[in-house]
């Protein structure tokens, strides 16, 4: 049996710590749980969790937030940003968030395996009964959404 800490808090803590350390930005629960990132503004990527549980985590934010993060992290102006830098930041954010999420979730001596982040062209995923959604925002009220799917992962809720 997997020993774990509460799933929801494990993710909030992972996002918060990652944004604080990487981008000096705070993250918290969104004040409006019904808020959705506009479809034409959204950028999204995903990563598979392979072991000891199976599932998929998706990270979504607006293009404007990703641009802001890229400018901050690389100390560049908007006109100097290369799209590959934005992709790289989104992937590194997801990689770090999910690594920390799994560390928060599992007991100390449990190893885990995750895949490599991939850009999602389709935008925001379809949400069904087996999807867990985290709606977060930065201190500047830019929305971040996380989606978790996969029976063995969602069972931990």
């Amino acid at each position, binding site marked *: 049996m997997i020993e774990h800490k509460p799933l929801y808090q494990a993710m909030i803590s992972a996002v918060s710590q990652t944004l604080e350390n990487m981008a000096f930005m705070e993250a918290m629960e969104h004040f409006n749980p019904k808020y959705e990132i506009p479809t034409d503004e959204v950028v999204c990527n995903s990563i598979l969790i392979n072991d000891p549980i199976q599932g998929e985590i998706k990270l979504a934010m607006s293009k404007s937030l990703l641009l802001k993060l890229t400018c901050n992290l690389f100390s560049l102006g908007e006109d100097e940003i290369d799209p590959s830098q934005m992709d790289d930041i989104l992937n590194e954010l997801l990689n*770090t968030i999910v690594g920390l999420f799994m560390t928060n979730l599992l007991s100390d001596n449990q190893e885990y395996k995750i895949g490599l982040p991939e850009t999602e062209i389709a935008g925001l995923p379809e949400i069904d009964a087996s999807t867990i959604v985290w709606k977060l925002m930065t201190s500047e009220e830019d929305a971040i959404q996380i989606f978790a799917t996969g029976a063995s992962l969602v069972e931990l809720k």
Partner: protein
Amino acid sequence: MNKILIVDDSTTARMVIKRCLKIIGLTDATVIEVAHGQEALDIIKEQQVDLLVTDLNMPVMSGETLISRIKANPKLNEMPVIVVTCAGNPAKEAQLLGLGVNQVVNKPVSAELMLTALEGICPELLITM
């Protein structure tokens, strides 16, 4: 001048590590960045590197293979190695320390974590700042 080799396939991750090294005062060190273990190995064989900071999960050659190759080479095995990974937990850390890694730092890396890691293995790098 000290030479630090950062190995990670993410330019963001390399940039964050470089920023941490700068914050803790290693502004004079020469920092070389590469994207995978094979590139790192080629550099280490050609020139003196004072500190290796590497990720684990990379294409072409993983961090674990790179570390094994370095630790198996008598000319290279004294080089201090810090692993920066998002796949870290006590079990993984023990495995890496068994391979000869000096310190394991979990992502998201911070200046404080890098300083603690460096104080433990190569304080001479910090003295020269």
